[in-house]
């Protein structure tokens, strides 16, 4: 490490300039490499999704679609004999995500408010139990959940898709409680004196005051459940309640070599969230702060 002495003595502006450019050059090299390596696979798959089957067969995966065709997407949306279209999966996924999102937000906000602002016997013990359940991963409970929901006759129903998640999430409750604790009690008291009930208090004061964390949680919930795969695959069978990830997986195993069609499927599965991510990039970047070191 002898370089530091030269820096200290402020060398000629010329060599300083070279160092600056070189420094930035290295940075740009890293940034460009990161961007190319990240986007490459997406580019390949989207390109292939717009390539005709014949062109793909003749020219391989690196050819630029000429002409770009919508055949693969059309094939996905025109359910044929086997009814393997993507219309149902898209609709089922949207319904499932919406139901889980609304339920999880409402019930998590209610619980978090109670934990943060009310006193009742058993509160602290219960909250500790909620925190402990954060350690339970999906894969550990998938077999027993399957047995339970099959036992009550809910296998392959819409309820089976949403029920385990719709009643609130310990993670959301934990994050919301942290934020709800900071609400000034004078504000709450003022509203209560004006005769506001708990629901009005929540809707007009607590939720608006905590909009950033709620937006973050909405995004996390949408991403998690749009992408969820294991539980929907296990608990549903056949095309009726197939979600988009399960449809993509079955497309891949069914049309193993029809990669242009499969890539149209993956493009559809990923596109909505990529757009969401681009629109809400600030909130997603900020969410990292919420998740760390509380």
């Amino acid at each position, binding site marked *: 490490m002898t370089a530091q002495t030269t820096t200290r003595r402020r060398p000629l502006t010329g060599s300083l300039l070279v160092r600056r450019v070189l420094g930035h050059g290295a940075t740009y090299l890293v940034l460009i490499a990161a961007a190319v390596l*990240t986007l490459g696979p*997406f580019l390949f798959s989207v390109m292939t999704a717009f390539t005709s089957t014949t062109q793909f067969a003749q020219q391989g995966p690196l050819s630029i679609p000429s002409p770009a065709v919508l055949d693969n997407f059309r094939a996905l949306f025109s359910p044929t004999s086997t009814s393997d279209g993507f219309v149902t999966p898209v609709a089922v996924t949207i319904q499932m995500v919406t139901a889980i999102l609304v339920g999880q937000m409402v*019930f998590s906000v209610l619980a978090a408010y109670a934990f943060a602002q009310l006193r009742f016997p058993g509160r602290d013990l219960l909250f500790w139990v909620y925190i402990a*359940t954060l350690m339970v991963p999906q894969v550990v409970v998938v077999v027993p959940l399957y047995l339970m929901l099959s036992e009550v006759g809910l296998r392959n129903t819409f309820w089976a898709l949403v029920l385990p*998640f719709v*009643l609130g999430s310990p993670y959301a409750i934990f994050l919301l409680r942290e934020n709800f604790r900071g609400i000034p009690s004078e504000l709450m008291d003022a509203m209560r004196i004006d005769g506001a009930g708990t629901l009005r208090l929540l809707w007009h004061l607590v939720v608006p005051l905590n909009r950033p964390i709620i937006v973050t949680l909405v995004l996390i919930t949408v991403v998690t459940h749009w992408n969820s795969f294991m539980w929907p695959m296990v608990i549903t069978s056949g095309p009726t309640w197939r979600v988009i990830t399960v449809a993509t997986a079955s497309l891949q195993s069914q049309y193993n070599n029809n990669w242009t069609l499969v890539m149209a499927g993956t493009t559809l599965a990923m596109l909505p969230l990529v757009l969401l991510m681009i629109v809400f990039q600030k909130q997603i970047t900020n969410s990292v702060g919420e998740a*760390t070191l509380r």
Partner: protein
Amino acid sequence: MNARRPLLGWLLIAPSLIGVTCFLILPVVLAFVVSLFRWDLLGTRKFLGLDNYISLLSDGALANSLLVTAIFTLISVPVSLAIGLVLATQLVRALPGSAIVRVIVVIPWVCAPLALGVVWKWIFQPSVGALNQILGVRIEWLTDPSLALPAVAFVAIWQNVGYISLFFQAGLTRIPGSIYEAARIDGASSAQQMWFMTIPLLRPTTFFLAVTQVVASFQVFDMVYALTGGGPQHRTEVIASLIYNEAFGASRLGRASAVAVILFLLLVVITVIQQRWFSKRITYDMS
């Protein structure tokens, strides 16, 4: 002041309490119970005691999965943390254009691991895959027993690096610039600043990431399912794949539950160790 309203409190908690009890606590208890039975998908069952655990230990399936998961973790976590840190140090310099790159590198993280797995499975295809076409080789990335697990780990790294760099970026911006100025005046090179200042000061972030990434990589499933399904020769059969294959492939729900119980206990141990560490290290103050 907290209001003392017992009835309202319980009423507001009720829905989530039902959810937590029925869909998190009860299933964990049930997993313990099912693991003591021979139990198939048709519902026939026979009490076995600890036989599922004994057979898992003796036939090597569990040991294999634990080893595969451990290797996967040991490759993917350190490498993605290291690349994530390097990426973050370049992104926080906030040069023109870096804002776009910051968004681009997080894109894989919001995509379904299942869909990404399918895309990469195609890229890795020996004959029509993009990777072999670019490299001009014909390598069986996902079916060669010695290449499959590194290939799966690579895809996991590729997906997580951008997300990890977000945490490091947040950590880096919390370090006051004045200490670097002081170091420069004292003549510390940028390599020295990185090694003796940045990395130690980022320790809380690094530790948080290491723990959450280890816990997450012990649960990885979707991506492996799409890429290899656990093959070739069980070389990529991570713990979650073993649970799935035992339960829904081989119709052995009891054995699958025994694996689940072991995974759960393992994660509890990791979390408890982490808590011990955290309580010691979290007091690290950088002001």
